[in-house]
């Protein structure tokens, strides 16, 4: 009834190629954007921004990057954490070498460094597939984290071995560093994430997206319809690592404020991979749903029992969190490999014919 698509005729291919051919989808997105850009800033607390909203967006962006590689192009990667690290360290070096550089420009440029590293470690994908490729990217993960520790130039020879985010301003507002307010950081992250998502949707539905999906579904057939496998795979590594690198730069500059090499270890890679799997491989929306679940779950476990007067220790929160996420991943892999995004697709289909399902 509310989601009726009947009567929404398309009279041109251009109309058919609109971002949201169904009116209700566009309305729903507009509602979400209003909540994100207006309602949250008016109502949310600093805790809400720092513990929930900003990390959800950043993790969703990282998962989006990984999803392009794994969900769209079918190349499994376990090096996401390290590629995020490349973006973060590149951004750090850029702002220390060029202090005048606008932080957004620095973040956008840092993506190219992670993209280049991603392509270099993606070269084995031309020869090997599946688990073997995953092991090759695992090598990237360990090598890069080692490099972050050993190459002192990367962290400006700080005695602590950590990178400390400087205060930078944009339009007179401090957006990074200790003096930045949570809300201004939230706006920056939200804007970047919205723009990248828009561009990612367009890439994945056009020629390049079809090329990636063709390689994923059957690489031999892809080659025989004229797709250059090398170009397709390396472009997937490039775009994916670019987005992951931006997510890494945001991760440190607009959320954590400081970082050591260990932050980008395999745990981070797995967390992003879990978000992509639970959210749904081969879907853009899924990254947001997955990130929401993975980030919100520990917050919910930590706060909800306390509201009912049940004392819960932080160790208990962590254990419960690990158990639930583990169970969820196994559950999703068995029941719905397409993740939360497929759940939404099913609900949407049901809504379209509700309340007359025949």
């Amino acid at each position, binding site marked *: 009834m509310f989601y009726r698509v009947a009567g929404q005729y398309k009279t041109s*291919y*251009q109309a058919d*190629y609109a*971002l949201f051919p169904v009116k209700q989808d566009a309305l729903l997105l507009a509602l979400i954007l209003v909540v994100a850009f207006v309602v949250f800033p008016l109502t949310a607390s600093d805790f809400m921004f720092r513990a929930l909203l900003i990390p959800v967006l950043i993790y969703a962006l990282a998962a989006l990057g990984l999803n392009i590689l794994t969900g769209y192009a079918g190349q499994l990667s376990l090096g996401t954490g390290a590629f995020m690290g490349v973006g973060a360290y590149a951004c750090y070096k850029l702002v220390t070498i060029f202090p005048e550089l606008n932080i957004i420009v620095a973040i956008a440029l840092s993506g190219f460094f992670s993209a280049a590293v991603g392509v270099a470690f993606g070269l084995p994908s031309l020869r090997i597939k599946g688990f073997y490729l995953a092991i090759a990217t695992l090598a990237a993960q360990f090598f890069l984290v080692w490099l972050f520790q050993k190459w002192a130039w990367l962290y400006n020879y700080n005695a602590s071995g950590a990178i400390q985010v400087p205060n930078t301003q944009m339009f007179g507002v401090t957006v990074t560093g200790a003096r930045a307010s949570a809300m201004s950081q939230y706006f920056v992250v939200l804007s970047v994430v919205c723009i990248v998502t828009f*561009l990612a949707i*367009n*890439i994945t*539905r*056009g*020629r*390049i997206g*079809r*090329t990636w*999906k*063709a390689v*994923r*579904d*059957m690489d*031999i*057939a*892809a*080659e*025989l*319809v*004229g*797709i*250059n496998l090398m170009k397709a795979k390396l*472009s997937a590594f490039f*775009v994916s690592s670019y987005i992951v690198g931006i997510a890494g730069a945001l991760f440190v500059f607009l959320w954590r404020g400081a970082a050591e090499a260990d932050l980008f270890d395999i745990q981070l890679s797995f967390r992003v991979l879990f978000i992509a799997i639970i959210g749904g491989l*081969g879907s853009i929306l899924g990254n947001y749903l997955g990130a929401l679940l993975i980030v919100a779950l520990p917050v919910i476990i930590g706060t909800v029992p306390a509201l009912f007067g049940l004392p819960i220790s932080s160790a208990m929160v962590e254990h419960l969190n690990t158990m639930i996420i583990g169970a969820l991943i196994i559950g999703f892999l068995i029941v719905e490999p397409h993740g939360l995004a497929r759940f939404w697709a099913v609900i949407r289909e049901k809504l379209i014919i509700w309340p007359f399902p025949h």
Partner: protein
Amino acid sequence: MNAHPDHHVIVAPPGDDIAKGDLLMEVKNVSLAFGGVKAITDISFDVRKGEIRAIIGPNGAGKTSMLNVINGFYTPQVGTITFRGQERRAMKPHHAVRQGIARTFQNVALFKGMSTLDNIMAGRSVLMKRSIGWQMLWHGPALAEEIEHREKVEEIIDFLEIEHIRRTPVGKLPYGLQKRVELGRALAMEPSLLLLDEPMAGMNLEEKEDMSRFILDVNQQRGTTIALIEHDMGVVMDLSDRVVVLDYGKKIADGAPDEVKNNQAVIDAYLGVPH
């Protein structure tokens, strides 16, 4: 055979300078071996523009290997292939596509997770040029290009009568329709030579009739030259202009369907005699 009345006339691919009946491709003394196994031994034949050329023979005769050689999947150890007047040696399949050779497979090789529309659009990947920058914005030249190719793809969808499954993921389609989508994907490449590897394998009579009609229409309306492998002799003899017969990797006969049908070597090796 007359064209189906409600079919749209589809124009032949541009830039075809070879006149109908002239030599389109010549295979000369080609041999292919995998280690000690000789798949193809010293085979020569030609394909003329506008004809339907059948390759037949018993299982293991080297028919599919021959197609794989033609579209660059295998590189023969000996021999040459001349396509549109140009001789070529080692090449990759995507080069063959760029030269205008498209093919379908014995076992359907579609992109199962993608819709019918996307599968056929993927066939036009080589014809699309817009950079990633425009595609990211989904605007201007990229959108215009997408729409231009969509129109071509819709013509093919119309032609093959698969409008109703446009948005269905092909993994969910029945086998006969998958074969049709695969033909659509090959047509989307606007080939000057179309290779069909057992287009009617596993089909019932009605599906075979449909597929035969599509093949004839492609040949007659679009002027596409077709080389096909098929085991249904009724279909082969009806459709094809000339037939080449392989056995154990060697050519044993070549000629018009009637000649081949009555050739003693072919009867002994493959056709047999009716009981």
